[in-house]
């Protein structure tokens, strides 16, 4: 009997080993290119057909969002912006009208540091273009814009008709759409019966369920090195987003100009290399993971206060000089890749 028992135990062990190997096989992944960046969707499932069909649905939805809300190729958004610039009102789709209302709400929460109406300034800084020319904007054009600074609460939404009290308003959903896409993807996957997935839209990530009982893990890119700064588990419904100066930027005379503009100055800010927020499982968590990192990124040393406005307890900042600051709650989750002297804040 002993021999049978031992053989059985051995078989169990081998089985466990085999299944451990199978886990990777059951992750189905595809990537695509939208919003000027990469998206990738991983689904952990038993049925490859179900996973493929669900992922295809998600990528189609991303394409739809890309085409509808592109900031400079003809889209519903550019049509809205043309109307607002010429003082006209615009019949917006219910989805776009709702996004604008949501953006106004987030503008208030972020004390004005999240403002998607600064598209004209983003364009002046050269970030609305497939081409690339490192140059400061035309000073006169920038000064004119600063004289009548656009605010997203200049936008008036009535019965689906959108107008603006300030013709300088030019909506750019660059800091919102990626998060919105995460929420849409999560809803689509759940609707398809997918419980376990990891969605990455241009660096913003949302997790559904887990990977065969093990939590999904994400790496946080180091803002100045090619590797990761830290890794951490991402649990069901959580989303993570980073605002940084290392993804879209140009350098001129030794100064780095990043694409995130401070709505108060319409200039890039310089105090922070990267600001990461982790949003718990809550409605519109994807949007929040995209939006809430912006005000904290722009606030410099005042970053912690900004994350509190959004009810966020998990946040990480790499300051302009490379110092790492992390909230107590997030510190408990992080595994730093190399020993890092991180100062913990409450």
């Amino acid at each position, binding site marked *: 009997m002993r021999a049978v028992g031992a053989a059985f135990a051995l078989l169990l062990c081998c089985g466990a080993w085999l299944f451990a190997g199978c886990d990777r096989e059951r992750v189905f992944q595809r990537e695509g*290119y939208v919003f000027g*960046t990469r998206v990738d969707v*991983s689904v952990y499932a038993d049925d490859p057909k179900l996973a493929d069909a669900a992922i295809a649905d998600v990528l189609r939805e991303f394409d739809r969002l890309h085409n509808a809300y592109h900031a400079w190729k003809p889209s519903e958004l550019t049509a809205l912006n043309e109307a607002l610039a010429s003082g006209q009102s615009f019949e917006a789709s219910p989805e776009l009208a709702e996004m604008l209302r949501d953006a106004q709400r987030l503008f208030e929460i972020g004390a004005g540091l999240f403002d998607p109406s600064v598209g004209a300034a983003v364009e002046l800084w050269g970030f609305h273009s497939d081409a690339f020319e490192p140059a400061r904007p035309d000073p006169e054009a920038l000064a004119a814009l600063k004289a009548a600074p656009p605010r997203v609460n200049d936008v008036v939404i009535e019965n689906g008709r959108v107008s603006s009290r300030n013709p300088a308003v030019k909506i750019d959903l660059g800091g919102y759409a990626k998060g919105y896409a995460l929420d849409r993807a999560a809803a689509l996957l759940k609707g398809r019966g997918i419980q376990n997935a990891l969605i990455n839209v241009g660096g913003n990530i949302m997790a559904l369920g887990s990977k065969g009982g093990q939590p999904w893990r994400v790496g946080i890119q180091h803002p100045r090195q090619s590797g990761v700064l830290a890794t951490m588990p991402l649990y069901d419904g959580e989303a993570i987003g980073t605002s940084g100066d290392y993804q879209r930027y140009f350098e001129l005379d030794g100064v780095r100009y990043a694409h995130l503009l401070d709505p108060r100055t319409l200039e890039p800010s310089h105090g922070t290399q990267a600001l990461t927020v982790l949003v718990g499982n809550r409605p519109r968590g994807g949007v929040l993971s995209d939006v809430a990192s912006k005000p904290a990124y722009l606030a410099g040393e005042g970053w912690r206060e900004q994350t509190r406005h959004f009810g966020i307890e998990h946040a990480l900042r790499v300051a302009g000089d490379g110092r790492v600051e992390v909230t107590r709650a997030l510190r408990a989750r992080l595994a730093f890749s190399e020993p890092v002297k991180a100062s913990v804040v409450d």
Partner: protein
Amino acid sequence: MRGAGLRLRSAGAWRVLLRPGDWAVALAGLAVCAASGLWLWRGGEADGVIVRAAGKVFAQASLSHPRRIDVPGPLGMTVIEIEPGRARVASDPGPRQYCVRQGWLARAGAVAICAPNEVSLTLTGRGADYDSLNY
């Protein structure tokens, strides 16, 4: 040990049960453990690359031999260069060159993305300690 007919009186007495061959077996077992640990764990070291173009796998290669992979995209040719243990985007037709400036990648899970030309380079390996990269 009930019913075994043997009672061990002092803490070290069990040693009398071991024969010289048993020690050899135990030592061999330890050696196998240590060796497999070194062999299999290799924390985070990459062993291969996956190159994707327009979202589809274009090439998969091991990191053991030097190799050059030309990847066509909407803007032109992205060139991936592989050396033992590392890989990089050697050149890319995109305007901002971020993926080229990333330089050599060596850790499993590391990614370089040339978004305009829709090419990505991902390092794979048993020790990849994350599933996706936040940036």
